[in-house]
């Protein structure tokens, strides 16, 4: 096990060193471009809703639409073939190629043909196959798999490509600049296109009512591959069909923006083949127009390859809505560091690849890289068809867990942490998934537990059996839990309070960072809220992160039951830990029945969102800690004013997905703090991920971008605050300054 882990860590380190820079620069460029471009699009949200609705309808009606496509394409004079699987599709295309005596075949970029490994199949049958998209051409020459679904050669720098071309081609002079490389490729591929007998493309969309293919490219190669050879084969997954021609419009406006951040890509080709463009013969001296287009032949291969089964699968179905724009990959902090080759999979890469790989290649292919999704949820709002990508990752993780064989160390956790999961579940997963039990034990035996855990032999053992990296500082458990503190406290409750709230004692606030819980209680009470801190079950975030869905579901039910009496009595639920709030508002929808989910989701708030609401409704902020309180405030203890008014704030991923970041900033600013914020995608920790030995280096590499921002001159002297537990831990290891939770600044009993 640990050698497997070490191998994984090695491979990640290797990719960080060799491909990380190039991937990072490009993916972050695309990502920034997307933010700018969607900003310019009026009604972006409405576009996404429409795009999603079209896809939902299309997948729902898919069998009918396939028949409709068959009719319209055949009416237009083309042929449609529905292929069951890769072998079936390859056989069909091979026959078309053979019937045309095609020695040379040119292709424009198509992930679907990568999925079925069409090139290999055609080459085995004796044809030369050339990729005409420059990125794909580079990979073909290098004999490599794509690292990215839109920009396949994203991991290669110009210098790399120059070296490759200079080695592979017999050139008079070495190529160097991007311009030279491009010109060489253009000419080389131009000749291949001219001599080709068959052109193969994918299709971004196929419209059922008109039998139209839509191809989105920036280079113009798809058009040439269609128009120059007189036989055209389009290979498309059945999920590419949409009902009507007009349905193309939102996608045309969304796809480029979502992918590379361009408002629109240079060429959006729309055609209902066979096309009317005359066939071209470069040896003839007749005007092109005289050739006519009668010889043109068109075949549409619609590929099933597991998709119809995905359609029946309630959890994987959404994957079929994906338009392969790559926004999820570009916005993924881990992807930005290592790229698609670390994400593995046979064909697809990045966030949604888990769904694709599980659907078309089976779970084993998805298993390899599924772990790299930390569940941070940053991709969720970036997806133009609103797919809950982390959820698909979680589900597939769960299924992989269930397929696992019994492990040898199971007895270690079995008795300690009974859960709903299969016996063979990876020990590391089980350990993190049952953090609740550990936390309870840790608090009960603190400080001995902390001392014990920190001893070198313990760390070694933990690393060996659980894969917890020795370099990470472990959370220190408090002897008195947050719930106990509240219970033991002797403070009179406000009479006739207008607001009643439960402060949710999440695992960390209850056992590790009790200070932030206490600060939250004091803050709310100062604003006139009657507060309760009952003993409530853990949210289930920890098991969910490990793909232990059944255990998470158990937790969810317990939480709902524990909170029900309070909700019925009119209490709101205030949550300090953003990842737990995200559980209540996002994942619980999948884990609880609708009524229970809604009543909890509607009434739960992030602590700053709640404070903001109170202030907006007229609560007096005077008792709260502000930039000016500190030294002269009796309750502030040893506080000093210097520097503490200037804040560098890192919001938590899930908090940003829920669009809650502005509340913290607003409240801090009302209290005269000067706030700058980080704009990196993620801190790189995302909970258990950063503790795991195999991911430590990746986690630190991602974190490095946050460190750079907070060490830049405009932030270097500021007090660092962060909302999430994992962000705080990561910042703690990245910076020399000790980060704190923003609620500690607002706390009326603020202690600096």
């Amino acid at each position, binding site marked *: 096990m640990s050698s497997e882990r070490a191998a994984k860590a090695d491979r990640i380190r290797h990719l960080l060193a060799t491909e990380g820079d190039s991937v990072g620069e*490009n993916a972050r460029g695309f990502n920034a471009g997307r933010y700018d471009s969607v900003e310019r699009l009026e009604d972006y949200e409405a576009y996404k809703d429409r795009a999603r609705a079209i896809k939902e309808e299309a997948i729902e009606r898919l069998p009918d639409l396939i028949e409709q496509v068959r009719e319209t394409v055949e009416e*237009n004079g083309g042929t449609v073939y529905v292929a069951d699987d890769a072998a079936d599709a390859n056989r069909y295309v091979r026959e078309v190629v053979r019937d045309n005596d095609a020695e040379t075949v040119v292709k424009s970029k198509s992930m679907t043909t990568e999925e079925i490994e069409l090139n290999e199949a055609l080459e085995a049958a004796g044809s030369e196959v050339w990729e*005409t998209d*420059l*990125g794909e051409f*580079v990979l073909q020459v290098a004999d490599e798999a794509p690292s990215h679904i839109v*920009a396949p050669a994203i991991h*290669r*720098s*110009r*210098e790399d*490509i120059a070296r490759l071309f200079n080695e592979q081609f017999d050139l008079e002079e070495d190529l160097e600049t*991007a*311009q030279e*490389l*491009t010109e060489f*490729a*253009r000419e080389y591929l*131009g000749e291949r296109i001219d001599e080709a007998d068959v052109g193969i493309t994918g299709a971004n969309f196929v419209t059922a009512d*008109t039998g*139209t293919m839509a191809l989105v490219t*920036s*280079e*113009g*190669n798809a*058009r*040439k591959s269609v*128009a120059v050879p007189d036989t055209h084969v389009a290979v498309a997954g059945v999920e590419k069909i949409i009902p*009507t*021609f*007009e349905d193309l*419009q939102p996608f*045309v*406006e969304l796809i480029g923006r979502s992918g*590379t951040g361009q*408002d*629109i*890509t*240079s*060429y*959006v*080709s*729309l*055609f*209902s083949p066979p*096309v*009317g*463009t*005359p066939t*071209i*013969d*470069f040896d*003839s*001296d*007749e*005007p*092109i*127009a005289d050739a*006519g*287009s009668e010889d043109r032949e068109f075949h549409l291969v619609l590929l099933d390859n597991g998709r119809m089964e995905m359609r029946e699968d309630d959890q994987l179905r959404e994957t079929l809505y994906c338009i392969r724009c790559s926004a999820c990959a570009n916005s993924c902090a881990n992807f930005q560091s290592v790229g698609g080759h670390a994400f593995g999979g046979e064909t697809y890469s990045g966030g949604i690849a888990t769904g694709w790989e599980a659907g078309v290649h089976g779970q084993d292919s998805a298993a390899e890289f599924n772990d790299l999704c930390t569940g941070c949820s940053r991709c969720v709002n970036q997806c133009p068809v609103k797919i809950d990508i982390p959820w698909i990752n979680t589900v597939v993780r769960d299924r992989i867990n269930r397929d696992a064989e019994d492990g040898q160390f199971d007895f270690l956790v079995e008795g300690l942490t009974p859960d709903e999961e299969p016996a063979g579940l990876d020990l590391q997963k089980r350990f993190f998934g049952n953090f609740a039990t550990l936390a309870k034990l840790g608090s009960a035996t603190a400080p001995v537990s902390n001392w014990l855990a920190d001893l070198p032999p313990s760390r070694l053992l933990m690393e060996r059996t659980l894969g917890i990296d020795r370099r990470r500082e472990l959370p220190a458990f408090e002897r008195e839990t947050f719930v106990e503190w509240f219970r033991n406290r002797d403070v009179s409750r406000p009479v006739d309070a207008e607001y009643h709230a439960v402060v949710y004692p999440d695992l960390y606030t209850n056992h590790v960072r009790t200070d932030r819980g206490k600060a939250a209680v004091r803050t709310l009470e100062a604003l006139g809220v009657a507060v309760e801190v009952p003993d409530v079950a853990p949210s289930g975030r920890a098991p969910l992160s490990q793909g232990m869905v059944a255990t998470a579901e158990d937790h969810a039910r317990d939480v709902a039951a524990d909170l029900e009496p309070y909700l019925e009595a009119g209490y709101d639920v205030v949550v300090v830990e953003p990842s737990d709030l995200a559980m209540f508002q996002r994942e619980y929808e999948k884990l609880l029945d609708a009524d229970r989910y809604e009543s909890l989701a509607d009434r739960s708030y992030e602590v700053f969102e709640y404070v903001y609401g109170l202030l907006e409704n007229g609560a007096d902020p005077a008792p709260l800690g502000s930039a000016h309180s500190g030294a002269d405030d009796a309750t502030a203890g040893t506080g000093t004013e210097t520097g503490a008014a200037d804040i560098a704030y890192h919001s938590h991923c899930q908090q940003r997905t829920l669009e809650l970041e502005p509340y913290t900033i607003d409240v801090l600013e009302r209290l005269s703090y000067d706030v700058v914020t980080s704009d990196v995608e993620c801190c790189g920790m995302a909970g258990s991920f950063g503790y795991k030995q195999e991911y430590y280096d990746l986690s630190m590499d991602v974190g490095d971008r946050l460190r750079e921002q907070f060490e830049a001159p405009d932030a270097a002297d500021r007090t660092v605050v962060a909302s999430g537990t994992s962000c705080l831990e990561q910042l703690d290891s990245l910076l020399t300054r000790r980060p704190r939770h923003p609620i500690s600044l607002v706390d009326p009993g603020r202690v600096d």
Partner: protein
Amino acid sequence: MATQLETFESNLGTVRTDVTRATPSTFEAAIADAIVEPAVGTSLPFEEVSLANTDVVCDPTSTQLREAACGVTAAAIGVADYGSVVLEATPDGAEFAGLFPDRHVVVLRKRDIVPDMAAAFERLGDRFRDGRDDAVIATGPSATADMGELVHGVHGPRETHAIILESEEQSERDGETRGENDVQ
């Protein structure tokens, strides 16, 4: 407020496409300015103008196409919000003339400019159902960043130029409006 034409023109600029306005009487001069020779083209489906009296070789052979530095073709629609033009394939090979040479000159009537993609798709839907079912929405020159930085003219043109055709009266009226705007 910018007029639709002005929006279109400024967006063409954003996507690296030069623009000239022309009327039927200034059209030939505009073509002469916009092309580089040798130029090939396909017949324009507009009554007001033709390429007959220009230096553009219409109805080219494949050799002429291959040697051309410039291609001239018509656009059916202009999309103001994006600076996009809709190029239709024709039986005389407009598609090739717009794709092979290094420079592409697009001729477009002012009245075929629509404000946004939604309007463009409405028109395209009608055309596709009528059987004119082959079009490229082209926005600026061909481009790639696959070789490490942005390079234009990969498989398609490196330079694009749009000639917007107005009627004589439109052009005068535009002049007046522009004049009025200047006063304000």
